[in-house]
């Protein structure tokens, strides 16, 4: 493990999500059974990065003699920066502290929490779930009384999101799926508990009912 090379998060994420990726491999690679990115590594595109960014001016000698100071490639050949902070140290230390198994467990729990949120949404007649994948759930407030009125549901959920964000109790992002404005929950904080998701669902339903009742 080289602390000078960034990109280790990919390896950790890989370990935890391999099972999910395997389940989706047929979809993403035409049925070959494994994805082209299924090999973990510190940097998948090192050659492309060096081809793109390498600039060795006369004051930065690189003589290819690996026994000397100026032999190995400069890190500045792999990106925009000439010098940079020791960013990879954070990755190195985090991997040593948690271990791959620690990341695998945390990411597996994030995915399980997303599945739990999906079940909470599915159990609520006034919420509709549009998508679930890994640790993300997309849903919206869609009471039966709205009769699928697309424009009204978009306006209602935009207002709901803005109101929720200002209330300081929960923060969601949003996205557009099949032309619909939807709420998007990304579960990635190890301190998030099942109760926090129950709280989120209750908040969204309460706000949605208030706004829908107010004629939005």
């Amino acid at each position, binding site marked *: 493990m080289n*602390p000078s090379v960034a990109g280790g998060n990919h390896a950790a994420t890989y370990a935890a999500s391999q099972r999910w990726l395997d389940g989706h491999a047929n979809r993403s690679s035409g049925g070959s059974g494994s994805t082209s990115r299924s090999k973990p590594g510190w940097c998948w595109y090192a050659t492309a990065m060096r081809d793109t960014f390498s600039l060795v001016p006369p004051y930065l000698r690189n003589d290819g003699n690996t026994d000397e100071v100026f032999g190995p490639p400069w890190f500045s050949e792999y990106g925009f920066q000439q010098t940079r902070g020791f960013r990879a140290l954070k990755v190195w230390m985090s991997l040593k*502290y948690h271990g791959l*198994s620690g990341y695998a467990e*945390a990411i597996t*729990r994030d995915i399980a*929490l997303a599945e739990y949120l999906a079940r909470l949404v599915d159990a609520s007649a006034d919420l509709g779930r549009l998508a679930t994948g890994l640790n993300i759930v997309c849903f919206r407030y869609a009471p039966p009384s709205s009769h699928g009125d697309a424009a009204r549901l978009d306006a209602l959920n935009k207002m709901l999101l803005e109101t929720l964000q200002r209330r300081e109790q929960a923060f969601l992002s949003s996205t557009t799926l099949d032309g619909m404005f939807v709420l998007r929950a990304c579960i990635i904080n190890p301190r998030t508990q099942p109760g926090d998701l129950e709280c989120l669902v209750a908040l969204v339903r309460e706000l949605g009912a208030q706004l829908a009742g107010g004629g939005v």
Partner: protein
Amino acid sequence: MPESAALEFAPEMRQRWDWSTDDMRHCGHLVVDLIAHHLTSLPERPVFRPLPPELAERFRSAALPLTGQDPEEILAEFARDVEPYPFGNGHPHAFMGGSTPPRRLLGSLLRCWPRP
């Protein structure tokens, strides 16, 4: 995807992701001691000390750690195998750009948690 996957961490795993105030103070003091030692002793040390090839090879060939280590062990390894080999920058005799003024510590330490 298994419905039975745990929604809660085991207690010892949860502690790894959710440090107490005492955990943070303990590790924080160890880290600040390392920084203080580095910055104050740097001018007395060689301006450049190449990473020994065998140490480089050890880093290169080490497997990704499957299980976690304690912070004290990790910081001890950093102090032994990483800290002594900065690439010159920061030493008053390093005439190729870059330095580490102590005031940068303030921003660097405080920027570790927010994500603007």
